[in-house]
């Protein structure tokens, strides 16, 4: 089946039973774990109300919070950079790589780096960036894109991962899941010990102290922030929170929603580089505060998208996501949050049909730790798209100009009477497959008849 667009990609995905099974299994498991963990809180509603209030203030004051963060991170010895786009991040990488002879990077999973196509930017700077999160490592080996923001290799089962490791790492093809994890550990350990720089995102940026908080379960976040001599952080300005006291609340909302854990195995808080007398950590920390359209989103009707913690709960709860998997979105951000965020970042022209990938069932909003009104946003975005679309605009123009309308109808009648319809789209073909297009009769139209009758000729 050919075709770009969401419907074609979704149709392709639903043909692959293995993918669908893997997606459904993992999404369901994450959903159940989340349910138990959120239930364990007892006061989820109160907590998300409080968290929303904090984020409302953050989104209204992005500029000043970013400045506060920059001041405090700089005071702690980090170098803070502001970037409008991925291109600016790329330019910075080129400069750093040239000045400091950086070749090999280890990288943690980060949606923000996916968003700006970091791997290519690093490549252009002469840096090989190796993904170290197991899921990301798998898809990097397979030259694929992530299909879930929390579990990027959700679409591959253990046999497929086993075959991949066998081909690329030379390990036996019949390793179980534990063996595969051990193979990845051994392979990546060497790379960790030899890497020149560590690249991370940031789950939260604490303005008060200039701290970057990272959440991981595997420990690659700790390795990446401890071993290489330089750490490079790329984080969206939406990750800012005002104070350290706000951090615990957001951490637990994130990990409970994402994987059903009260806290992840590791939380690493990075405040500047290694200080005098310390033996762990890099000598240099660079933090890029990325805008890439976020200021525009903050000022527009979809500002609550910046509340998003990137936990993935809306994906696991979405009937459309569960039916077609993440690749159908063809965006780093799939699922309900992706259907809104992707057109906001890259434009509706790039993703015109994503707002349609929604049944308006409302489960995403229910599951969202920030209660982002995702179904409403789908509707709003659809309206926005339709207002720009050609066909409805043509109809509106014709309806408001009677002369033009009559002229256009007369021409259409002429074409139809000839019996050939110069339209060859799939929509038209689907329509006429089951229905006959009524042909206009040979006689005068009602208007023509009425006109003649008034003139006394009929």
């Amino acid at each position, binding site marked *: 089946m050919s075709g770009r667009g969401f419907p074609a990609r979704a149709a392709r995905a639903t043909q692959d039973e293995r993918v669908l099974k893997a997606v459904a299994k993992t999404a369901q498991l994450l959903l159940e774990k989340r349910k138990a963990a959120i239930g364990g809180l007892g006061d989820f509603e109160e907590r998300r109300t409080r968290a929303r209030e904090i984020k409302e203030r953050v989104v209204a004051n992005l500029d000043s919070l970013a400045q506060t963060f920059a001041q405090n991170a700089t005071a702690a010895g980090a170098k803070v950079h502001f970037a409008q786009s991925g291109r600016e991040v790329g330019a910075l990488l080129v400069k750093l790589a040239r000045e400091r002879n950086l070749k090999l990077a280890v990288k943690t999973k980060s949606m923000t780096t996916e968003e700006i196509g970091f791997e290519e930017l690093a490549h252009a700077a002469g840096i090989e960036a190796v993904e170290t999160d197991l899921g990301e490592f798998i898809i990097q080996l397979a030259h694929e894109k992530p299909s879930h923001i929390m579990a990027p290799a959700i679409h591959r089962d253990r046999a497929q*991962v086993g075959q991949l490791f066998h081909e690329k790492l030379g390990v036996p093809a019949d390793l179980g899941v534990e063996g595969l994890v051990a193979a990845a550990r051994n392979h990546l350990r060497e790379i960790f010990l030899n890497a020149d720089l560590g690249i991370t995102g940031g789950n939260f940026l604490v303005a008060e102290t200039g701290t970057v908080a990272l959440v991981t379960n595997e420990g690659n976040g700790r390795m990446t922030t401890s071993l290489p001599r330089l750490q490079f952080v790329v984080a969206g300005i939406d990750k800012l929170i005002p104070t350290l006291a706000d951090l*615990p609340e957001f951490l637990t909302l994130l990990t409970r929603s994402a994987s059903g854990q009260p806290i992840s195995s590791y939380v690493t808080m990075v405040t500047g580089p290694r*200080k005098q007398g310390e033996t762990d950590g890099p000598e240099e920390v660079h933090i890029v505060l990325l805008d890439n359209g976020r200021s525009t989103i903050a000022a527009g009707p979809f500002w609550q998208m910046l509340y998003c913690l990137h936990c993935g709960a809306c994906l696991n709860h979405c009937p459309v996501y569960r039916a077609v998997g993440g690749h159908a979105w063809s965006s780093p951000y799939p699922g309900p949050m992706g259907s809104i965020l992707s057109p906001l970042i890259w434009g509706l022209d790039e993703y015109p049909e994503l707002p349609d990938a929604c049944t308006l069932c409302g489960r995403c909003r229910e599951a969202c730790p920030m209660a982002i009104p995702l179904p409403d946003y789908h509707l709003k975005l659809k309206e926005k798209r339709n207002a720009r679309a050609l066909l409805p605009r043509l109809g509106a123009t014709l309806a408001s100009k009677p002369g033009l309308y009559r002229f256009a109808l007369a021409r259409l009648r002429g074409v139809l009477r000839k019996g050939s319809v110069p339209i060859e789209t799939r929509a038209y073909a689907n329509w006429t497959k089951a229905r006959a297009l009524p042909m206009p009769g040979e006689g005068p139209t009602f208007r023509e008849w009425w006109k003649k009758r008034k003139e006394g000729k009929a």
Partner: protein
Amino acid sequence: MSDLSTYIKNASAAGTEVATMTAADLAGKVEALALETCSSTALLAGFEKSPELLAAIVSGLQKAGVRIVNSEEAALADLGVTHCETLVADTGSLSHDSFGTATLTASLLPKVHLAVGRPVNLHPDLKSLLAANAQKMPARLALITGPSRTGDIEATMTKCVHGPGRVIHYIIDRPA
């Protein structure tokens, strides 16, 4: 429930193997653990201010035939032993920071991590730990809650990805 029992309950739920003991029991317990985990090398960090704990650990390791490596050989160690006095009860986390010696790498690189110490800084929650650090944040502050794990292949929970597959915590909570 005391903060210490809350810590033990939550840390155990997260997969940390917690045991309480006297300082006099420590050497024997360390020896048994080294044998059980088949460790032949160990990396120690953070015991500068607790010479009596250090002596007990070294004696236990020596009896088990474990060679103690320095930080240049950190990547080769089978067992990482860190001095840990900072705990968070409601998350069941132990905490290491970059002040002082290399507890961060010793608790990360080996496949088995043993934390030993008196629960001197026992915080009821994360907010309390962060408040204690807010005036002067260390360059690195890490919370460790159970072993390294992943669910990235078919959501099958698997341990020992990049960090230790086992986290053991010997809490010295009684006088010898």
